[in-house]
Every structure is written in C-alpha cells, then in structure tokens.
C-alpha cells in the first residue's frame, strides 16, 4: 500500500486489499482429529490467543477458509475429511499439523493414511509430534506470507499444486 502526501489518501489495488484481508482473517474449521487438536485448542485459548491474529475457529466449513488437519488421518475418516475440504468456499488453504498428518508419523499401519496430501493439497506442513502452539503459530504466519507472495506474482516460483479434478471416487485405480 502507498500513502501519498499527508492528505491521508490510500492508493491500492483490489488484489492487494483482498490479499491483505484474507491473510489477516484466516478462519479455520474447528476439527480435531487426535493429539494435535489439544495443542490447537491451547493455541486458541488464553495464553497464545490466536484471536489477535484474526483467527477465529468456526463450526461450519462453509464459513471457513483454512483447514488445520490436526492429528492422525486414518483411512476411514479420509473421505469425510475430503468432503469437508470440498465444502469450504474458495479461496482455501490447508495446514498439515504434525507428523501424522504430514506423512503418517509413527503409525505405518494398515489403517492409517500416510500423509494427508494424498487426498487434499497441502500449503504448509508443520513438523512435531505434537507441534507446540508456537509451532502452529509459525505455520500460520508462513501461510500468511504465502498468501502475500502469491498476490505479488510469485506463485510461479512455488511448487505447482495439482488440484484434483474428479472428487467422487478416491480410489484412482
């Protein structure tokens, strides 16, 4: 944004305003899957207080634009998580919180999904088992940076995200 002179006029573009407002009012869906959800609650509670970053947890995916995948995603819950992701309005972002969501974590078993990026595209991965609230805040700030850079035309330098076109059958073969 640019301020010209002392008259208080702000000159900007629509994209800049949109990007600014989007990154400063990230509303996540309040979904907790496992241990990481406890740390997510701590991040939202009195000490770390995500409200000051404009983050307010919403009960409905229709009102949210960030999905924080907090915890182990098992095969049985994967189609339902995908459904919730699809219900969210665009633009939307996904934060994969913790080792289990990012890559299966310590559970290489028959029933665990080895990384949530196999069903939905992920923007930010946060390491840790479980990540501390500070780590989650770091992840959110990374996401804000990413949204800001995208506005400035830097999206081509990022890893291109392959968005699934067909949504109904998850089995691809």
């Amino acid at each position, binding site marked *: 944004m640019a301020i010209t002179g002392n008259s208080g006029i702000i000159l900007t573009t629509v994209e800049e305003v949109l990007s600014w407002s989007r990154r400063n009012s990230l509303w996540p869906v*309040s*979904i*907790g*899957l*496992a*241990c990481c*959800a*406890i*740390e997510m*609650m*701590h991040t939202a*509670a*009195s*000490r770390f207080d995500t409200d000051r970053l404009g983050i307010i947890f919403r*009960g409905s995916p229709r009102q949210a634009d960030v999905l924080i995948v907090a*915890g*182990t995603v*098992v*095969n*049985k*819950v*994967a*189609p*339902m*998580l995908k*459904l*919730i992701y699809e219900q969210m309005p665009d633009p939307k972002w996904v934060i994969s919180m913790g080792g289990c969501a990012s*890559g299966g974590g*310590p*559970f*290489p*078993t*028959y*029933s*665990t*999904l*080895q*990384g949530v*990026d*196999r*069903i*939905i*595209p*992920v923007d930010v991965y946060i390491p840790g*088992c*479980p990540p*501390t609230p500070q780590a989650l805040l770091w992840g959110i700030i990374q996401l804000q940076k990413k949204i800001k850079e995208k506005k400035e035309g830097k999206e081509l330098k990022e*890893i*291109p*995200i*392959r*968005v*699934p076109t067909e949504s*109904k*059958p*998850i*089995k*691809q*073969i």
Partner: protein
Amino acid sequence: MLWINPQKAEGLKSAFPSLKISHQKNSLSVEIDKDKVLELLKYLKENPEYSFKMFIDFTLVDYPLHNPRFQAVYILYSPDYNERIIVKTWTDETLPSITTLWKGAKWAEREAYDMFGVRFEGHENLVRMFLWETYPYFPLRKDFPKEGIKDTYLPSLNERDNIPSHDYDPYHTAIPTLEDLEITERKRINKKNQIVLNWGPLHPGTHGTIWFLFDLEGETIKDCDIILGQLHRGIEKLAEDLTYTQIIPYTDRMDYISALCSNIAYVNAVEKLLGVEPTEKAKWIRTMMAELQRINSHLLWLGTTALDLGALTMFLYTFREREKLMDIIEGIAGIRLNSSFLRIGGVRYDLPEGSLDVIKHFIKDFPSRIKDYEDMLTKNRIWIRRNKDVGVVTKEDVYQYGLTGIMARSAGVPYDIRYIQPTDAYPEVDFEIPLGTVGDAYDRYLLRMEEMKQSLNIIAQCVKKLEELKNDKHLATENPYVLPTLQETYFSIEAMVKDFNLRIYGEKAPKGEIYLSGENPRGELGFYIVSEGEGRPYRLRIRSGAFYNLQIFPELIKGRTVADAVTLLGSIDPVVGETDR
C-alpha cells in the same frame, strides 16, 4: 496381585471336571472347552462363592500353528472378594456370545470379529467395530502384514511434475468411498422413526471423531448406535513388532490427554512381567507426575464440557491453569503433551533443580482456582438443569458394562485401581476416594472436582517425600533389563553393550502372560501382555476404560433429547485415541 486363590479355583473342578487350571507367576487362568464356556462363566457370575459379577475384558489371541487357532480370553472381576480370574477357551470359527450374561461384551465381541474374523452365535448385531463393512481383511491375524495390502495408487497431490518431492511409496492401502461408509452406517441402525440423525464424526461437540447415529422421533432419541474407528491406528498390531521400550511412546498417543497415566499403567505391567523393581525415588516421581496429569486431564474435561454446554469462560480459565501444568510437565519431562517420561525401571530424567519449588507454588495457588470454578458452576442454575438426572448409572450397570473410573464411582461402587491394586507409591500416600450417590452427570462433575483436590493432596505428600530422597537414583540401571543412562553408555563399555543388546533385541521377557491395570482419569486402563519368551510381546491387548464407558451411552440416551447427548458425552469423557487405539 489380585488373582483368585488357587484352592478356590480347584473347587471349580467339582462342577466342571474337564477344567484345566494354570497357575503362573503373574496370573491365574482356567481353560475349558468351547461348548462349556458359557456354562462356566454363568456359574462364576452367579455362584455367591465366586461372584465374578464384573466384566473386565474379552479378547482373542491368534496362534496360527495351533489347532484350533484362536484362544479366547475372558477377564472377570469379583467386587465381593476383590479377585480377578482369566477364563480361556479355544476356537476355530465361532464362539457363543456372552452378551446374555454381560451387556458389556457387545462391543468387545464386535471388536474380536473385526480384528480376527471369529463369529459370535447369538450376538444381536455383529458388525465391524473399527473398520468399515466392505473391508475384506482381519488385521490382527498373524498372517496379515502390519502395513496392510498396498493395492491403491494414491500419490501425493503436492508432488512436482516428474520430479519426486520425497522418497515415498505412491501405492497405498485402500481407502473407503462414501458409499462404503453409508453401507457401514445402514448396517448399524434401522430407521424406525422419523429421521436418523448423524452426529459427528467431525463435529466440534463429539470430543474427537466419534460418529453417533440417533433414530429420532421429534426431538426424542428412540434408538442409538455409535460407530468407532475414526482414529483406529492399529497400535495393538504395531506393538507386536516393537520392543517393550519402543511401545512406551505409543501409550502416550493412545490417551493423549493423560499421557503419563497411560505410561505408568503400561510400564508397571511390563515391569511385573520382567521382574524389574523401580527405584524408590522413581516411584514417588511417577505418582507425583500421574497426579499432576490427572488434574490436567480433569481441567480439560471441565473446560470442554462447560464449553459444550455454553460456558465459554470456563474454557479460558481452565486452559490458563493447564498451561501452568504443561509448563511444569515440560520442565520435568521435556515435552508438553506426549512426554514418554517413563522407562522400564524408573523415569527418563532426574528432577531438575527447582522443580519441586514450582510444584509447591502450584499447590498453594490452585485451591483458590478450584474455588473460583465451583463458585461459577456448582450452584449455577443453567448448569444444574443441564446436568441433573442426565445419564443415571446404577450399580448393576457398572457390573454389566464393566464401567470403571468416575462412571463406576458416581454409581457408588468404590472401584479405584489406586486403592484395590496400588502400584508405585500409592500404598504409602494418604487419599480419599469420593463416591457418588445418584449417579448422574452432576454427580460426576462433583466427583471430578473433588478428585482434583485429592490429587493436590497426594502431590503435596510426594513433594515432601521427594525432598528427602534428593540424592537417590532415578533409574534402576543395575537391573539387566533396564537401559543405562546416557552418561553410563558413553563412559563404560559394559553399559554400551547392554544398551545395544536391549535396543536391538529387546527385553527378553520370560514366557507367560500378565494383566495389570492402572487408574487412568478415564477409567481402568489395563494391559494384557502375552509373552512367548522373545524381545517383543506376542500379543498386547489394551483394555481401554473409555471404550467400555462409552458403551453405555446408547442405553442411557434412549428417551432423552439431543441436547442431553452433549451433556452425557461430556460426563462420560471418552478420548478417541484410547477407545479406538
């Protein structure tokens, strides 16, 4: 140990001549033919001389080379004589259902069918407990691989074109479609009334990922069933491939709200099996940490339940105190939540300098906080009207469903593992066990508040004792089964060899079996370990308190409204990591 007297067990032979009694160091089990097992269990339950009224656990063990293949294990408890017994039988395909004797066996039998494929004759609705209906395999059988059958091509969507982002297998185990889940749902409940309402699995009020099905007539719930397995990670299968020390972090991730209490239950069972005695100081540290964790867990319950019932302030207040407790635990154990602080033979670290002072300050500060909470809730008109007379549990329910923890004590049954089978420093500390009179959700609220005060009392005694034991060892490293400390490993070759052996080959436990439990904030968390003399357990069965406590939910909610379901679920306080394992 709480096992039945061997002479008394011999007395069973007069009624059942074909009975085989096996008396081991850590357990006492009786074995009988499949067609007589129902008769024997009925005899044990109804004969006043034995009176094994309370159902604790049922599971199967797979022996692929044995004929018949599966061993069924029933664990019962007698509240009158304070004794446990294990009843075993063998089968290939079917077993008689014992739901006529104990309603609590319903889910345990579903789980056994899900995991092993053994069918139960006479079960009212035998469906899969954790996995979906169209899943073709039985995972806990020994011939099923731990990783599952990777037959679906499921690459990462974040992968860059042609350049692999990281080294991973794009083939994956099969994921159900939404149709598969719909079949699962329809098998559970038949719509008889106006509408079938799905509550969960990803709903903020369900404390995780539990999936409720309500058959509604207006707003009244006529029928209910619960689908679990939205967090089934296969810990029991994983454990068969790990050494005893490697399993400790998994017990954290089971009941993640009270990780240290789960650690203690598991480590005590393994120590009994191996014959390891922890040091005196470690025992007191464990007790102190368990009670800190209990307060922590009850605070989370208080905050979230009050939040569900509309009291947002409680959530902010309790999480403020939880942060203080988390800091104390982080200071001592190194990690906030899933700390894996315990080791076989002791604890990971010695107490750091000044930690007892912090805890002392917390003990001084916390009673006034509890008073604040009680001022806000106990006589609050809305709180009382939401909680009174919801989910009344009777003594008979406790025995029928195997309810433990707060659920049992709210009905007036003094079932507390810290009291009936004390481990660690519990025999030496002085505390009271509060009991309920009505058995409703309000009683359970009062009990949890009182338990927090009792825990503070125990912590104060532990701090006093630990100040005396300042210079003791925290790990019994002279024992051959105990891992040496880092310092010893670096500076002595014997310790290094021992460390290597234990880490690679595991603790070679003697052949046998053990069932030992600990008092989790959610109920009795028991570990049934079968050892075949190897460094890894042959079978590790986790008896989850929350699993059995949740089972009474459909029974209690019938005839009540959806709003009561929130209260009732809050007062049962399940953790999905523990129910699904």
